[in-house]
């Protein structure tokens, strides 16, 4: 049994909230737009935090949705749900972009949290932006598997079982990775 299938079995029995939209998209691609609108923000955020650049994140988001739309006809729900399948597509796209990034050797730092809230206290904003940069730098310094788990858990809100589907690991292995990642981050942020 593969880790992914163990993860599938470990998922709570539930009805996939996307099931109806997926069935509709398989009959008529017009319905794919519903899934696109539902997930574009989260896929983009995942790509942005992983790649750290708006343009690369847009490219990865575009490729993810076009690939997902192309593959939706072959999608079969094995218990993991559409969301895990979509993020697996996103994860593969982002991993490819990272490989190509390593070849180009560029590593921009994201500035997502620099967007000020209206009427925010300037001193608090500066402190928050600085802390945000420090946290993100620490996340980006994590080993790749730990970083991926952190992003999928906190940015995309996926459960350990869903992350197991995305990364082809058991839910238990994902929980251990998350535990190590958070302990690692605690040490890095203390210093």
């Amino acid at each position, binding site marked *: 049994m593969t880790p992914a299938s163990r993860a599938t079995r470990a998922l709570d029995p539930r009805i996939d909230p996307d099931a109806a939209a997926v069935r509709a998209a398989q009959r*008529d*691609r*017009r319905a*794919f*737009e519903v899934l*696109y*609108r539902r997930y*574009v*923000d*989260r896929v*983009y*955020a995942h790509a*942005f*935090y992983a790649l750290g650049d*708006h343009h690369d*994140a*847009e490219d990865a*988001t*575009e490729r993810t*949705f*076009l690939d997902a*739309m192309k593959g939706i006809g072959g999608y079969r729900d094995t218990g993991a749900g559409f969301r895990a399948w979509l993020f697996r597509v996103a994860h593969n796209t982002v991993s490819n972009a990272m490989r190509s990034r390593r070849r180009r050797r560029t590593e921009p730092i994201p500035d*997502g*949290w620099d967007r000020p809230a209206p009427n925010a206290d300037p001193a608090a904003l500066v402190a928050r932006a600085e*802390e*945000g940069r420090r*946290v*993100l730098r620490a*996340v980006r310094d994590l080993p790749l598997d730990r970083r991926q788990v*952190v*992003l999928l*858990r*906190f*940015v995309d*809100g996926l*459960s*350990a079982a869903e992350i197991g589907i995305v990364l082809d690991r058991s839910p*238990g292995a994902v*929980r*251990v990775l*998350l*535990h190590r990642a*958070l*302990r690692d*981050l*605690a040490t890095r*942020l203390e210093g």
Partner: protein
Amino acid sequence: MPIDRTPADRLDAAVDALLAGERAPGDAGLRAAISVAELLRTTLTPIPPGARFQAALGERIHGARFGERTLRAVTGTTRGRLIAAGAVSSAAVGVGVTAFAVWRTSRRQSGALHRLHR
């Protein structure tokens, strides 16, 4: 009988609670990891893509769907007719090219003969 849960399981449950907007259970052994989780929850906030990008990609998805539907409509209902039309037009192009070649060759030959006779 209570199940003995590992620290990784307890931390995962605490993260679930945090992400659901609830207070994480106080677990002395996990205090540092839970405070990092809290920090990540507030730092890694959703960042929506630009409106222009979102609209352009939506348009591409819309366009791909339209193209696919059009193709399916045409090929699904009149596949036989399409094949016949393709064959006829290929034959017509072939006949046309041959006729043109024959006509040009005959013109050149008659021109050459005409010049010889002069």
